[in-house]
């Protein structure tokens, strides 16, 4: 099912959670809404689900207005961050809930309910837990129950709110692969909310990066990583080295020193030169746009980072640079930084 979000704005008292958001989610896609806390991603998901209503704007399912329908009429499967399982029901009854509450012509006979629930429990690989209560399950198992329960109503849209947020790293990774697999098996459009970029990049067909109630960029995982549209996306996804600079007369300067880098069409004024750590080489200080003093070198596992202090007229700026294997760097030495691939963005006014 195609979901269209058109011009949606939502305010909570004085806080603007969503600011004129437009988004189209294609049928059968798995889309991740990625952003820091307070970026409005969960609010957008809840508006699509019908748990929240926008102040202005439209939500359409396959072209039909969805806002006139309540959450129970929208036929969406919603998976909550903290699972929201019914504690007084065992696993089987939790999954059966959506089938048991049906009334009138939709009501299923008991045998059909049992068959469907057992089928779902095997699908999420917890058929052996059917008689247990939620309190007796691990986090990963609870999440599987929550997913089976949401799938019981045969939803055309599956909405997941930080589904793996409360799980430990190993279980999270395993469930992530499994969810991707499940999405491909079922005729469902999935929207996943997460603040974990690794999760979004690994799992989703398309990633929607959100910040401050706006959509910053929509694209494939490779696009948002390699070609971030805004400084916010560059900062938020992957690791970033931020080098200060200024555009004057169509050229980039650091202080009074011309950098010899391409300003990429950014207008005159203070700018930020953003690069991935692995795209910045260390070189002889005389030959590079930037040079500075090494303050400290730190090692985490396979990577080593150096804090380099750049001196400029506006006071010292410390950046973190990647140190390649086999290169030794002593604190106190002078080193040059050469960005090979970089993006230039205007410095936002403060």
């Amino acid at each position, binding site marked *: 099912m195609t979901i269209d979000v058109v011009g949606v704005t939502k305010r909570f008292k004085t806080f603007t959670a969503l600011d004129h958001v437009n988004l189209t989610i294609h049928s059968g896609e798995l889309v991740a809404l990625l952003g820091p806390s307070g970026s409005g991603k969960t609010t957008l998901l809840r508006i699509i689900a019908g748990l929240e209503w926008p102040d202005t704007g439209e939500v359409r399912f396959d072209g039909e207005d969805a806002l006139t329908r309540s959450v129970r009429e929208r036929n969406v499967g919603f998976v909550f961050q903290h699972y*929201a399982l019914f504690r007084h029901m065992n696993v089987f009854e939790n999954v059966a809930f959506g089938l048991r509450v049906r009334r009138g012509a939709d009501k299923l006979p008991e045998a059909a309910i049992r068959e469907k629930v057992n089928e779902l429990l095997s699908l999420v690989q917890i058929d052996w837990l059917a008689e247990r209560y939620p309190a*007796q399950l691990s986090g990963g198992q609870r999440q599987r129950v929550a997913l089976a329960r949401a799938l019981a109503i045969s939803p055309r849209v599956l909405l997941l709110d930080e589904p793996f947020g409360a799980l430990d790293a190993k279980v999270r990774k395993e469930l992530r692969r499994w969810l991707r697999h499940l999405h491909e098996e079922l005729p469902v459009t999935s929207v996943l909310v997460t603040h974990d970029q690794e999760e979004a990049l690994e799992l989703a067909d398309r990633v929607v990066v959100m910040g401050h109630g706006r959509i910053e960029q929509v694209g494939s995982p490779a696009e948002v990583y390699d070609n971030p549209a805004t400084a916010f996306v560059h900062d938020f996804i992957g690791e970033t080295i931020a080098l200060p600079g200024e555009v004057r007369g169509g050229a980039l300067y650091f202080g009074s020193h011309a950098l010899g880098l391409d300003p990429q069409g950014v207008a005159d004024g203070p700018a930020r030169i953003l690069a991935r750590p692995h795209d910045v080489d260390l070189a002889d200080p005389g030959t590079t746009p930037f040079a500075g003093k090494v303050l400290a070198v730190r090692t985490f596992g396979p990577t080593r980072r150096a804090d380099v202090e750049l001196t400029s007229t506006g006071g010292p700026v410390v950046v973190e640079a990647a140190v390649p294997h086999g290169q030794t760097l002593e604190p106190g030495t002078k080193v040059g930084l050469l960005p090979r691939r970089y993006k230039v963005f205007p410095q936002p006014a403060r």
Partner: protein
Amino acid sequence: MSASPSRIAFRQQSVIPGFGLTMGLTLTWLGLIVLLPLSALFIKTSELTLDRFIAIITAARTLHALQVSFGLALVAALVNVVFGAIVVWVLVRYDFPFKKVADALIDIPFALPTAVAGIALTALYAENGWIGSLLAPLGIQVSFTPLGIVVALVFIGLPFVVRTVQPVLADLDQELEEAAASLGATRVQTLVKVVLPSIWPALLTGFALAFARAVGEYGSVIFIAGNLPGVSEIAPLLIVIRLEEFRYADATAIATVMLVASFLLLLIINRLQRWAELRGGRNA
């Protein structure tokens, strides 16, 4: 591992300190405050012969008083559970002006001297009172009837239900209701299948507390009840009457019956509550 198995494992290894001290204090305290007065009651009752005891408690007036006390306390507790649950729902779920004031009002029956409550209620429900004068043309008389007793017991029992259920409902994750709705449940289905089972143990506790309080209530009831023997005389009043007649053993005999009956009822409610909690799957 090589410790002698003959020693009964009364206490287990634990990081929580002070088992001996706190357990000792608890038992002493319970003994002094609860058990000692109660045993005095039984000792005083034992001055009676068994025949005399049975004669006292099976007298028509006694039986009727007990029936009024327990029966009307049950009715009042049931009324309180239903309306208390609604009050809790409104206080927890909605925001409205003067909510804090409304919340504070709930506790007034706790604080008000019961005699004051009784006099106020009697004045309100008497035939020439504000409410009584409205009910009188309909042929409903509240003051000086068993109905008046129920009104007084409902008044004093309400905070017990509200204050036990309120924190439980406030803790109940609203996501549960959202989950139920997203699965297609109507509001009524969500309430019956999700919310009520979750607050059921708390409702039972509130019921037990309101009931226990109502059984022993004296001050507010005697003003509104009319106290006609065989019609609207409650057991605690009968005990006082016997005391005033210096028939102490008779008084303690009735008290003993009340005590045992209350204890049994509370025990049953306690079992029910445990069962509800087990069904709630809260025991991991």
